[in-house]
């Protein structure tokens, strides 16, 4: 087998050195009745050529967004990733290193993490960020747990239009703790008065911006009202590109910002691996979950980087740790950081403007179709459309035409008649005018039938 070097002679020689007569003697601690004698009922080993063909065959059965105009969003966004990003993250030294436990020979990973933390802190408008979480939803759950620890309160309020999967993951995470979450029913109009629900028992309010339906809101007043009662404002960002043109959550007064970083540098890959962003105020840093990289000096006084504040973490604190997280999204955070370095201040803003421009132009064209309404007054690159037919059905029909026309709201919020005809449409820099025209034509065909 190509991945294992020993010859039969070498194995025999090594067994002899160990002082046993067969490899079976090394497995004597396994109870006799549980030892496998026959091979598992699985195929035998295969040449690389065959493995390649088998994997290609799985891919060939799927409709790839690179071959079909795609307007999908709802928490994962298709953007152009410069070729250099994938090249760099496949450098052996990044790809095949472990968590940087030995800083003297891990400065590459560590400095990149320090730069990642700095970039995330800057774009969210916060003081500090960690070295990443698994994804946006798990970051959101960790934010609620952290807010409860910081405030020593037990209840969190989730905004009505938080992404339903973020709500689900957060509810799952707190269900067996002493903490609880309450959430308002989702509403496409976005009408809810979160400040009325605030009280001295509330640890935090969690609001997504832009929200699940794409709407933008100024959260400054809500931040003030949270702070008046000693609660934290947690802001969720599922489309991080929006921060290139929108006032940052930090400027609006957020105490914790969490988000999905996939849009920058990370391929769609059917939902994972992605990269959770987590940023907060300096004063809460010791309550943060996850790895943190910090600057220091070596014995010679040369600047270097180390994992730090590990007394928060499970390998030191065990059951008293701030989180059980160990492995995070290292390589995805590197991809994020490389892509963000390429964009820079000017490029990040331009990418966001480009997305907004394409989305506004597309929304105008879609809104002009008879019987179809764009419901948003405000949006970044994703908006909600009301169709005269069930959106799930429309999406299937469009897929048959080779168009990935959007995400039906009913897929994430099932069983609610109000949402049945609603379609989430995302337009990014990857969509050409011709793509939009094909979408418009398809929507006309479906709705006039």
């Amino acid at each position: 087998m190509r991945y294992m070097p020993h010859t039969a002679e070498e194995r025999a020689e090594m067994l002899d050195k160990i002082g046993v007569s067969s490899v079976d003697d090394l497995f004597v601690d396994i109870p006799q009745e549980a030892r496998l004698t026959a091979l598992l009922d699985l195929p035998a080993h295969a040449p690389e050529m065959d493995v390649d063909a088998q994997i290609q065959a799985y891919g060939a059965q799927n409709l790839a967004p690179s071959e079909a105009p795609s307007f999908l969003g709802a928490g994962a966004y298709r953007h152009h990733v410069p070729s250099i990003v994938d090249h760099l993250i496949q450098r052996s030294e990044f790809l095949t290193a472990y968590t940087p436990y030995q800083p003297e020979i891990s400065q590459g990973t560590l400095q990149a993490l320090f730069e990642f933390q700095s970039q995330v802190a800057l774009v969210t408008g916060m003081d500090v960020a960690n070295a990443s979480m698994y994804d946006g939803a798990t970051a959101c759950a960790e934010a609620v747990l952290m807010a409860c620890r910081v405030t020593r309160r037990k209840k969190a309020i989730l905004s009505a239009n938080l992404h339903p999967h973020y709500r689900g993951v957060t509810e799952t995470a707190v269900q067996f703790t002493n903490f609880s979450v309450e959430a308002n029913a989702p509403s496409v109009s976005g009408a809810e008065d979160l400040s009325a629900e605030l009280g001295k028992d509330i640890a935090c309010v969690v609001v997504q911006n832009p929200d699940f339906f794409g709407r933008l809101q100024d959260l400054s007043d809500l931040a003030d009202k949270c702070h008046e009662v000693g609660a934290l404002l947690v802001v969720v960002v599922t489309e991080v590109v929006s921060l290139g043109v929108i006032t940052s959550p930090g400027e609006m007064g957020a105490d914790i910002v969490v988000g999905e970083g996939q849009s920058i540098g990370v391929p769609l890959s059917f939902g994972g691996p992605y990269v959770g962003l987590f940023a907060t105020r300096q004063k809460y840093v010791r309550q943060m979950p996850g790895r943190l990289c910090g600057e220091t000096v070596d014995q010679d006084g040369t600047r270097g980087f180390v994992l730090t504040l590990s007394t928060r973490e499970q390998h030191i604190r065990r059951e008293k740790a701030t989180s059980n997280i160990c492995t995070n999204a290292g390589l995805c955070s590197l991809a994020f950081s490389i892509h963000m370095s390429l964009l820079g201040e000017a490029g990040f803003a331009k990418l966001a403007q480009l997305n907004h421009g394409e989305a506004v132009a597309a929304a105008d064209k879609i809104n002009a179709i008879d019987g179809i309404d764009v419901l948003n007054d405000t949006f970044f690159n994703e908006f909600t459309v009301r169709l005269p037919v069930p959106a799930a059905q429309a999406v299937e029909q469009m897929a048959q035409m080779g168009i990935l026309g959007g995400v039906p709201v009913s897929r994430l919020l099932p069983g609610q008649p109000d949402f049945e005809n609603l379609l989430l449409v995302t337009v990014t820099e990857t969509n050409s005018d011709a793509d939009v025209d094909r979408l418009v034509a398809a929507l006309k065909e479906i709705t006039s039938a």
Partner: protein
Amino acid sequence: MLNNVGRPTRPGAAGGDTPSGDTFTGNKALNLETPLIFEQGVKGRIGVDMHEPKQVKSCLGGLERKQEIGLPDLSEPQVMRHYVRLSRQNYSIDAGFYPLGSCTMKHNPRINEKAARVKGLGDIHPMQPQSSVQGALALIDDLAHWLKTITGMPAIAMSPAAGAHGELCGVMAIRAAHDAKGENRTRILVPESAHGTNPATAALCGYKVDPVPAREDGRMDMAAFKAKLGPDVAGVMLTNPNTCGLFERDVKEIADLIHSVGGYFYCDGANLNAILGRTRPGDLGVDAMHINLHKTFSTPHGGGGPGSGPVVLSDALAAFAPVPYVVKTDNVYSLQENVEGDSAKSFGRMKTFHGQMGMFIRALAYMLSHGSDGLRQIAEDAVLNANYIRVGLNDLLNAPFDGVCMHEALFDDSTLKDTGVTTLDIAKAMIDEGYHPMTMYFPLVVHGAMLIEPTESETKETLDMFIGSMRYLIEKAQTSNDTDFFAQAPRYAPRRRLDETAAARSPVLRWSRPDA
């Protein structure tokens, strides 16, 4: 030495006889330094060319960003050079031996990387209509079949993102099962040798962690375990093979005992590599076990993730598995995404989407490459290599537990006593010898632990050279009084020992503008 604007602090000034500071640039030939990305930008540069944005009426509702973010502007070649230089300051399994115990640093085949980028897999959206992703759902289902067959377990939850996330999945299923029976159990038994994630996970599920000590032979103390059993025990979290690199011989009795009090058996599967094709957790009485695809099945560690931690489940726990999961009916695949109908008992959702698809593809490619024969050979060679290291060192270093080991060899620091040299010093000296050190000071039940996991990827020549290097250093520590040799290590790494105390005392966790 670089100052905070990335220039030499003292041009040309050699700092005495210290290894750094003796060139103008701070570089040393192929050892190239790079300032922070923030210290390299110049306004007006850009690394990505884009179309011009359309001129439209803004729909941002007056929320336009007014302040500058503060990101640096660089060209593509600058970014290339920065990250290539950074990469060269990392040790990696591709470059050398990485015997980090408990981490299974094996060869990462590149066909797996190619596979993850196949059109129709790497580029598909999680919310595409399910009819347009039948191949992706089939791949997940096929990987699930391999994992269930390898472990002899009837059910699997694919969505957990890493080992610790998998632990959370398994213990939540245990908690949900007890809750469904109306039972309020409060304690979970965890051996003292467990990974820190085990107690941290149990606490997140509302359980009090009750530690069980280790016995003289490195296994869980059965007498202590039995004494702690009771109707308030929700389960036991046992790593097997355990963190001392030993198989828990009493595993079946442990399973029977925990089941006899109505509890469940969680197995930490971090060390699955040692038993592939030799035994199946399903035959050992396990109720839930996570599988680290990034250890056993070679998906790259990436400097700290992403991982993937599917959890196999017994029939007793299967109904409580998280959503989403793949269902196959009449050769059509679908995703059960919400808690309703058949999934009514599910404890909920753990992740934004369906799981770490990129890792699933890589792991399946790895399994297809190995097949049933190769998987068994992995375990045999991994265990062979660990025992070869054990016998190669155990006349010089003390192995705290007698007998054969599984996939990793454990030593304590007793033979370093009175030498003035510590486990940490040996590890740092191994860096100068060109190795990534073994795991140090873990498991906690052994003083000054050195945990060495060679994996099946390594040649006999590599193992012999490693054994020779360790012997050289241990003998030097024992026979010479040159503690400074060790205290000064590493000498040849991109950095010498870093001041971790200072880093934690006044944390600097991000770049700030020098004038801020």
